């Protein structure tokens, strides 16, 4: 009480004059309104916070749109609370505005963190490129420059069109603004919406004008290339995006390459490659891996076409088993495209790491197709005929030379490499690109193929493109439209391991393809996503089409009917894809200023605005103070009608009730209110639960004695050792017909309950907090966990911090919530002092059983 003694009593007796009474009634009404808005904002803030936490924990995909929206929403809600408290107690808590501004500024800075500055040149010749220029030229071109200029390996002549050029392009005539606007308005959770959006944005890019300075720079660089390679030289345009090929992430096959491009189509081709940043696979990949759009700046490589006799991919180690250090070469006739897009079988050469490397195995396959590039017709797919079909695409000498190159690149970069190569008409090796190998730890030895009954075996053999095992219903994807209907958790079955299926990998349990090897784009993305993939299984589509649920054991190279837990058990849990991504890191960092709760004890000295370190702290502080301010009003204004009244029950317990609005059935005169005059449904529900089952001790007492013990606990100050504030001495209910806010202190135990329960289900909520106890920390913790367990079973979301428990449930129908409030009433009484016995496991079990039985009984009763 702010003023003590006789004077205070005298003041309180002086009732408000009728005119004052009308004004005070009005003022109270307005205060109640602000209080309601404040509680609404509190709910919203807590809702967003738990959403943020869940997002950080789980495997849900999110982008910057979510991060920004969540941060803004929580900031607006918390600010509304700060403002609300200011209205309830003008000038009293102004320090909160400063705290809020400081925290919000931190969050803003985290979200707005700019990208590092880059080399401003629009084009850079290959002869001047190296690793250090990755930000300017993108990973692919910087790597090619590095191996050309520092390792002296042969690469095609060419130049990089830099990320700065792409930024100019996207900034020109506000193209990027328009793209962002469309992206931000889209529902990124729906593939069909994304599909349409992707097409729309790509069209915009293809039709957009290239800024004159960029156009000029590109054409000048091309002219220089003509001077080096001859007039009208045909070039390949390849994406060389930032963030691409960084080892952790391979954007393999997400972007477009344009082959056989001449001067006349150069600028169109450039736009086409830029547009592929917004292709469906690229958009979904960024979403799945947590890249912001702005994290991906598009560099483009412009390289003279190599008249490839043969081509393929070489791995400096086994990509599906990093413990296997042999060098693996995949080779086809013509351009390496056929290896990369998984459209034909390819030769496999395996070599040792010796110097010189020794050819350990050569598997020569029937190569049915090849891609060749003709000056006029461009890239053509040809059927391979005659003896060439079965001839190896590489000589032994070439294989050895390639293995040497792979080992040299691995040494240079210090990590295993994935290298695309071609041989020219002179038989010389040309490196087209190289990047870190995305390898995957193979499953443990326990996964060694278990014996299975023959009849359940649906397919056997093929190539392990990504190890592991996965199960789900078969989904055969044949057309692009199938992208849209692919269900979460299905097994993707396709004829060719085409890159376009990569956008489904975030949802697939496993992948099976009739054609394709482990060198293709789809295989690398599968490895990166940790999705088991088994390729090279002819006839799989027809055999699996009607198989229903299957288990794909990619490591054991077989597909079996049904779900096989034994095979799946050996599969390591898939890592959450978003973890470690730029967007995840940003959200994690912002969340540190939002979510943690540091203010736990309202009686502690630290419970003050200047100790609010997070937005959650601010909400906790405001909530506590707002309740207090609501109670003070009637007392401060000597206004009986809006002062709290003591609940008159059979025995003298100190329960104080403040009617916020329509919480009483009638006008209540004087200082006492009877239970029969209470109209508040949540409070009555709490009371039903509180008094339903007599407390059995300790000490063991009968029903009447129980209440006397309660009385002691609630009135005897000497029991309330932890109590410092007057407010905390009693049990308070603030009520309206469908709302109650309870602050309860029983002995050493502190509980709050806040409930809004009406027929408007969407707005309903129940929040319960519980803290304290007389026993040591361990025992109090044990009790908190037992309470948490019970509440979780009832559908509450529960969080525990030290011995402080916060439980929430929302948007449930009125009868459901009233029943739960009864349970909380029961728990508020019965869990007190049981912290004293929590060290004894037999007792704990006894209480667990008793609570469950009692709660069952409570739930089975009618609520009348």
């Amino acid at each position, binding site marked *: 009480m702010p003023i003590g003694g006789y004077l205070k009593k005298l003041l309180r007796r002086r009732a408000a004059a009728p005119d004052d009474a009308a004004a005070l009634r009005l003022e109270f009404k*307005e205060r109640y309104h602000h209080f309601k808005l404040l509680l609404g904002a509190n709910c919203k803030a807590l809702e967003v916070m738990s959403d943020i936490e869940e997002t950080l924990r789980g495997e849900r995909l999110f982008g910057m749109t979510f991060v920004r*929206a969540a941060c*803004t929403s929580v900031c607006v809600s918390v*600010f509304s609370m700060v403002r609300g408290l200011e209205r309830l107690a003008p000038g009293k808590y102004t320090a909160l505005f400063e705290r809020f501004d400081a925290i919000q500024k931190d969050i803003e800075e985290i979200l707005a963190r700019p990208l590092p500055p880059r080399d401003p040149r629009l084009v850079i010749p290959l002869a001047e490129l190296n690793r250090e220029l990755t930000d300017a030229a993108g990973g692919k071109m910087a790597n090619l420059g590095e191996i050309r200029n520092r390792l002296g390996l042969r690469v095609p002549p060419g130049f990089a069109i830099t990320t700065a050029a792409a930024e100019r392009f996207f900034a020109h005539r506000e193209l990027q603004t328009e793209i*962002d606007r469309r992206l931000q*308005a889209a529902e990124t959770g729906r593939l069909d919406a994304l599909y349409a959006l992707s097409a729309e944005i790509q069209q915009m890019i293809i039709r957009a004008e290239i800024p004159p300075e960029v156009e000029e720079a590109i054409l000048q660089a091309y002219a220089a290339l003509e001077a080096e390679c001859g007039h009208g030289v045909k070039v390949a345009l390849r994406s060389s995006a930032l963030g691409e090929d960084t080892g952790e992430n391979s954007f393999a096959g997400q972007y477009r390459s344009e082959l056989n491009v001449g001067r006349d189509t150069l600028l169109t081709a450039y736009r086409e490659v830029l547009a592929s940043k917004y292709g469906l696979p690229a958009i979904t990949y960024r979403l799945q891996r947590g890249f912001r759009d702005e994290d991906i700046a598009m560099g483009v490589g412009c390289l003279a076409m190599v008249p490839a006799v043969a081509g393929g991919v070489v791995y400096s180690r086994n990509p599906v088993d990093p413990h296997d250090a042999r060098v693996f070469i995949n080779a086809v006739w013509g351009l390496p495209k056929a290896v990369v897009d998984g459209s034909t079988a390819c030769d496999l050469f395996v070599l040792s790491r010796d110097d010189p490397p020794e050819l350990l195995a050569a598997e020569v396959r029937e190569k049915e197709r090849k891609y060749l590039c003709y000056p006029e017709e461009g890239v053509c797919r040809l059927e391979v005929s005659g003896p060439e079909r079965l001839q190896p695409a590489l000589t032994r000498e070439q294989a050895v030379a390639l293995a040497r190159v792979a080992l040299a690149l691995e040494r240079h970069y210090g990590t295993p490499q994935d290298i695309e190569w071609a041989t020219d008409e002179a038989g010389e090796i040309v490196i087209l690109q190289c990047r870190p190998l995305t390898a995957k730890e193979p499953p443990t030895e326990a996964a060694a193929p278990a014996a299975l009954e023959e009849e359940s075996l649906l397919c056997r053999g093929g190539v392990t493109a990504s190890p592991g095992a996965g199960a789900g219903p078969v989904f055969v994807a044949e057309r692009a439209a199938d992208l849209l209907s692919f269900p979460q958790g299905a097994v993707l079955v396709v004829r060719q391991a085409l890159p376009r299926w990569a956008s489904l990998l975030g949802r697939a349990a496993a992948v099976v393809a009739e054609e394709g090897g482990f060198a293709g784009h789809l295989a690398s993305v599968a490895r990166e996503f940790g999705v088991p993939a088994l390729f090279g299984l002819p006839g799989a589509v027809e055999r699996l089409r009607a198989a229903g649920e299957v288990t794909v054991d990619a490591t054991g190279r077989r597909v079996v009917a049904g779900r096989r837990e034994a095979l799946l058990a050996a599969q390591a849990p898939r890592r959450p894809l978003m973890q470690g991504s730029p967007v995840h890191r940003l959200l994690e960092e912002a969340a540190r200023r939002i979510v943690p709760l540091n203010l736990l004890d309202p009686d502690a000295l630290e419970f003050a605005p200047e100790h609010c370190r997070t937005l959650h702290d601010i909400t906790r502080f405001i909530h506590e103070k707002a309740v207090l301010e609501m109670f003070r009003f009637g007392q401060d204004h000597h206004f009986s009608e809006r002062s709290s009244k003591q609940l008159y029950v059979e025995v003298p317990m100190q329960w104080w009730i403040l009617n916020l609005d329509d919480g009483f059935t009638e006008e209540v005169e004087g200082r006492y209110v009877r239970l029969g005059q209470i109209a508040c449904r949540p409070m009555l529900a709490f009371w039903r639960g509180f008094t339903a089952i007599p407390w059995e001790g300790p000490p063991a007492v009968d029903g009447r004695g129980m209440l006397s013990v309660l009385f002691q606990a609630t009135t005897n100050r000497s029991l309330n050792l932890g109590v410092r504030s007057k407010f905390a001495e009693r049990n308070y209910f603030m009520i309206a017909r469908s709302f109650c806010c309870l602050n309860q202190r029983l002995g050493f135990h502190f509980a709050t309950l806040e409930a809004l329960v009406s027929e408007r289900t969407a707005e309903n909520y129940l929040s319960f907090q519980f803290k304290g106890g007389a026993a040591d920390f361990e025992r109090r913790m044990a009790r908190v966990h037992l309470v948490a367990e019970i509440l979780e079973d009832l559908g509450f979301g529960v969080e525990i911090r030290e011995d402080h428990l916060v439980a929430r449930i929302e948007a449930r129908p009125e009868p459901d919530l009233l029943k739960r409030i009864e349970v909380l009433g029961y728990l508020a009484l019965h869990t007190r002092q049981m912290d004293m016995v929590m060290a004894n496991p037999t007792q704990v079990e006894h209480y667990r059983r008793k609570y469950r039985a009692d709660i069952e009984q409570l739930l089975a009763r009618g609520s009348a």
Partner: protein
Amino acid sequence: MSPTHVLLVDDEEVFTRNIAKLLAHRGYRVTAVNSGDAAIRALEEQPFDVLVLDLKMPGLDGIATFREMLKLGLSVETIILTGHGSIDTALEAVKLGAHDYLTKPCEIEELVAKIESAREKGRGKRP
């Protein structure tokens, strides 16, 4: 009680037309204008219960309109409409005194709930 009078301000005419129609169906009286200047004029002419104001408009944008209103003492409970791109500005508007914000595209039910809440707040002020 007279129906809640909503002033809707957005330069996208299709959007305003649709929203105005949907709100009218729900018993609101709606006046729609397409610019910040028109909004100020409308507010000077007659009182409104709730203002629904788009942030991104050519000419006088949402924030500038809101500031101008404050300067002229035209007080009305305001709900800010914002795209995801300008969502950070929503906080600025709320700090200036706007009641709440909503991101576009929005569900009509959501808008109605916010209008109701703003209306209630306005009533709390002027009983």
